[in-house]
């Protein structure tokens, strides 16, 4: 970034870094697992059939890697859009910069996960597409016992 250019990162945005959102419910159901597995091209029956999954020692149909349930979003309610994503950014376009998921425990259909997200970093950069704001977030997924089953780190490029 050049000295002349004004930063789009406000003090208000900076104050949000590290602040954990309220939890959002994520439901992992049979159809969700199957639909995700089909989209990725899996043929292993543990992602589609409960009897096969159980015969192979799983609790239920297994959630394929990358599937951490669907957020429960009720129209008109703010829940479902974590605070970390509601930043007043002047750039309207967005690109997905990257995904990093750590898996601590297997997730299966029937699991009710709760996800909390925090903004971890804001960086400005000048790229081929013009000035960009790199938004880093971290989402922790916990099961009903309170155990962290996955941590997802995301990079969004706003430009």
């Amino acid at each position, binding site marked *: 970034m050049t000295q002349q250019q004004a930063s789009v990162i406000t003090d208000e945005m900076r104050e949000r870094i590290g602040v954990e959102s309220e939890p959002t419910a994520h439901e992992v159901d049979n159809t969700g697992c199957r639909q995700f597995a089909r989209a*990725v*091209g*899996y043929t292993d029956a543990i992602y589609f059939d409960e009897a096969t999954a159980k015969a192979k020692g799983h609790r239920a149909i297994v959630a394929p890697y990358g*599937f951490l349930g669907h957020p429960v979003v009720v129209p008109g309610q703010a829940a479902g859009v974590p605070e970390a994503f509601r930043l007043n950014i002047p750039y309207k376009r967005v690109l997905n910069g990257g995904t990093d998921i750590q898996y601590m425990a297997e997730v299966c259909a029937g699991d009710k996960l709760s996800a909390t997200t925090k903004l971890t970093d804001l960086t400005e950069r000048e790229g081929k597409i013009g000035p960009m704001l790199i938004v880093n977030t971290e989402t922790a997924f916990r099961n009903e016992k309170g155990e962290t089953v996955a941590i997802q780190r995301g990079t969004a490029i706003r430009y």
Partner: protein
Amino acid sequence: MAQVYFEDVSEGQEIPKLAQNCDSQRLVFWAAGSGDYYQIHYDKDFAQNTGLPDRITHGALKHALLGRLLDEWSGDGGRVLRVACSYRGMDMIDKDVLCRGVITGKRQENGSNVVDLEVWTEDPDGKKTTPGTAVVELPSK
């Protein structure tokens, strides 16, 4: 496929490749499966109005394909512990996404046999569009 064991693998070894064509039907499957309904992935007019030549394959689908590459390689006895990747280049609709991985190290961590890998996706011109790293646990003989 036969189970791969920790003892069988060594640094520098390449794991079996996975090619997945990403046509419009697959991208719609993915939109429904992931909940990402951004129109640049399935609405050609919308994609072109944002300046793209055509619809593009979702980044997160490429991340999930790398997960499948590792899951199918590590088999019933293995477990994927981490997949991280950056979306550096766009993959256009209807093209194959080729997923690849090379072992960069093996170690023991808290009693588990863990393998580190460099993973990536390539477009049909052989360009690395999604470089990344992964960690997989393998069973021991």
